[in-house]
């Protein structure tokens, strides 16, 4: 049904989108900040990493710079919101469209190829016991695991708790002496730093950075987040983060199966529609369930 290479391909893309889902978890869930910057910060990470790698930088350093670039983009969105009082959604849309031009400037052209460059993956190809198509999966799993542990520890730290308080109830948080504006700026920056990291890794594994590669990242990240939460109840930070990764991998496996399910008449063309339907259902269904339970319990009472 699913070939080994297609399966590893789904895992690899799923792991990368797991990082995107971490970022979206931070902005949407922790900070309650609907942030569309990611459609721009994903290709931004790719662009920065690609340009630096081509000019001879160490690919890990280049990837690190991509994270910083993503953080800067997130900070711009948050500052537009916090300091200039622009509605959060609009602020993120502004940064997103600006990033399209910025990314073109950074790359100098719409597409930068990395096919013949040394990337973070290159040294791993020589490892005896790993097949070509397994390399990126193993490496990205390590990156995701490290990010997960760091994020988890951060969320349990004092700053992390302050950030969660900011998202949960900003007024109360301010009353407790938390600088909520700073928390939002730092949180959205961190979120987009993770997305920039995902973009940088994605460009290196697919062989090119392209200005159009950010299209739909937000929707797929959300689908991963919501899908993961449906499978693993996010009752703790650790569980929520694991749900992000699992959700992203499930989404990718679903696509891999859809690509193979010629029998069902499903094709790649239908995927955007299916994604939209799934996200809508995942958002609406819990509400419907609560409504039904409420009505039921009211009748009982």
């Amino acid at each position, binding site marked *: 049904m699913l070939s080994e290479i297609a399966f590893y391909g789904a895992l690899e*893309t799923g792991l990368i989108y797991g990082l995107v889902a971490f970022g979206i978890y931070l902005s949407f869930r922790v900070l309650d900040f609907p942030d569309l910057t990611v459609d721009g910060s994903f290709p931004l990470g790719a662009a920065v990493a690609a340009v630096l790698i081509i000019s001879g930088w160490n690919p890990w350093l280049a990837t690190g710079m991509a994270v910083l670039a993503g953080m800067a983009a997130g900070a711009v969105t948050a500052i537009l919101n916090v300091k200039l009082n622009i509605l959060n959604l609009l602020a993120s849309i502004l940064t997103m469209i600006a990033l399209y031009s910025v990314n073109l400037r950074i790359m100098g*052209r719409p*597409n930068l190829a990395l*096919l013949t460059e040394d990337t973070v993956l290159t040294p791993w190809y020589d490892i005896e016991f790993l*097949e070509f198509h397994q390399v990126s999966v193993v490496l990205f799993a390590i990156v995701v695991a490290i990010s997960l542990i760091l994020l988890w520890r951060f969320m349990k730290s004092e700053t992390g708790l302050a950030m969660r308080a900011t998202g949960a109830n900003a007024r109360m948080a301010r009353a407790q002496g938390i600088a909520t504006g700073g928390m939002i700026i730092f949180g959205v920056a961190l979120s987009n730093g993770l997305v920039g990291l995902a973009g940088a890794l994605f460009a290196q594994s697919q*062989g090119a950075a392209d200005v159009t590669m950010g299209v739909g990242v937000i929707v797929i990240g959300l689908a991963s987040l919501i899908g993961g939460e449906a499978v693993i109840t996010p009752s703790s930070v650790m569980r929520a983060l694991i749900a992000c990764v699992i959700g992203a991998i499930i989404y990718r496996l679903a696509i891999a199966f859809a690509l193979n399910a010629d029998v069902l008449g499903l*094709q790649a063309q239908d995927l955007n529609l299916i994604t939209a339907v799934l996200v809508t259902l995942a958002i609406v269904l819990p509400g419907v369930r609560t409504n039904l339970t409420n009505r039921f319990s009211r009748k009982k009472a």
Partner: protein
Amino acid sequence: MAKKTLRTLLGASLLAAASLVQAEDTRVVAITQIVEHPALDAAHQGVKDELAEHGYIDGENLRLMHESAQGNSAIATQIARKFVGESPDVIVAIATPSAQTVAAAARKTPVVFSAVTDPVAAKLVKSWEAPGANITGVSDMLPIEKHIDLLQRVLPDAKRIGTVYNPGEANAVALIELLEERLAARGLELVKGAATKTSEVLGAARSLVGKADAIYLTTDNTVISAAEAVVSVGERSDIPVFAADTATVARGAVAALGFDYYKHGRQTGAMVVRILEGAETATMPVETMEELDLFVNPAAGERMGITLSEDVIKDAKEVVNSDK
């Protein structure tokens, strides 16, 4: 140890599967396309028709797979992995992003790209002449030399060639640099007018009046969207306007030597057929469009102060007479 056995087993079963396919004499061709778009769809259709013409019929002796990523690069990556995993005889990749994702995933499977402007810059091949690995294809690079030939055939005395382009469009800038170099080689001068938006095209075209003997437009998206503005300047100031694509001729350009993407696909299909019949990608040079169609618009010529000669009109595949 166990892993090695597993791999051998897997390899053996794959081999068995491959020989099974061989026995049935079914060839497998997989086509991946970054997005649906009239030009790219035409290329896809061309590949299919060319295969059919050479006796490779989908469902009979050929299994043809086709997927579009709908402009989503993560899905393009997964399509590439899916195709590589099924080890078809040839993977056809339409447009640069698709070709790059396949190139990143395929180590040995032969890959033929289509609608890629500069495969060397896209790092798909080492050189145009000798790709050197498992990838080759057909480029949709403009045949600049032939366009200059046409220009000189119609206007032998033109020395200063004007153009309007968008400095923010990477492909356009690359074409302009190439054009400038090729014109200089023939002792001609390129006069440039820059327009970053369609609304600036008229002003940029006007800036060429008095400085250019003819105007030549590349396939710059911004400028072609506002081609009428350039045509109106050409008509008012008697500067003949030439285009790189045939569609602009009906919109008032004097002449264009262009190609259509269906034929581009047919040429791609022809390369696929050669590979199916045993050719090696590494030694197959990247091809550019051989078959070009001349479109002329004598009425537009009259309005721009020139009369197209009978033999140019005779060579045209299509004679358009737009009236104002």
